[in-house]
């Protein structure tokens, strides 16, 4: 069994209103040292597979088809074998 930790982030240049709001929220809370905030999604997907190559191909396909919209999002992932 594998766990894929998937990060979906907005592509560079795409507006991130959430990040902006959080940044100004942090600033007004006195965290003046913050210069930039970007917000994305974090997903943990557990999959059954026999090899890391198989998982890797599968997770890539999931991201391309469903989890990210390539028009505005990038993704990357880390794989871990779990019990």
């Amino acid at each position: 069994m594998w766990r894929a930790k998937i990060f979906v982030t907005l592509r560079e240049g795409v507006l991130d209103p959430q990040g902006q709001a959080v940044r100004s929220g942090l600033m007004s809370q006195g965290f003046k040292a913050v210069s930039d905030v970007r917000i994305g999604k974090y997903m943990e997907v557990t999959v059954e597979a026999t090899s890391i190559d198989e998982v890797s191909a599968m997770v890539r396909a999931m991201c391309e088809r469903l989890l990210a919209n390539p028009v505005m999002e990038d993704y990357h992932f880390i794989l871990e074998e779990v019990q």
Partner: protein
Amino acid sequence: MKFGIVVFPGSNCDVDCYHAAKEVLGQPTEYVWHQEQDLSRFDCLVIPGGFSYGDYLRCGAIARFSPAMEAIARESERGKLVLGICNGFQILLESGLLPGAMLRNNHLQFRCEERHLRLENNRTPFTNLGEVGQVLRIPIAHAEGNYFIDENGLAELKRHNQIAFRYCDEQGRITPESNPNGSIENIAGITNRRGNILGMMPHPERAAEAILGCTDGKLVWVSILKWWGDIHA
């Protein structure tokens, strides 16, 4: 009785609540900018629905830090009434004035529609004109009304009779089908222990005039006025 309607950047039911307090109840009512620090002139503070700060991180997460929220915490300690509707309820949860938290609706969609509520506790300033078990028809409009609290918290709520409203069917039965968002035990509104803070997801201001199709929500507004009248009699 004097009403203050708190306005955050992104509030949008402020106009509706103002109208309910001012025109429907006929009471002196003012808008309160979120940066105000002294709210002692009000008898009831209403935190209206909307999307304060865009609801961008979590609903109500940023609004809770405003000076007005600090003032509201102070006034509530002095026994003033606080009514948080929809986003107002979420802000009260984030600020810890009410227990629990709000999750995304279990079906993940925004829902705007009329719903039935069962009044669970009529010994509050907000419900004193109703009967326990009475069914009210009041609209909801939210994407994050899935109330969550852990087991101990829930037991506490019940022990102190803090559940004010539950979603139910037309006959007043609490069923899974009548739950519009996955909220734990169909909870639609709760009070603090003392009973002077009410948070509810449904919008009583949208059901306070016949022309809007329903007047069941008026019960909340008129109860507030009655309670105040009784203590000032």
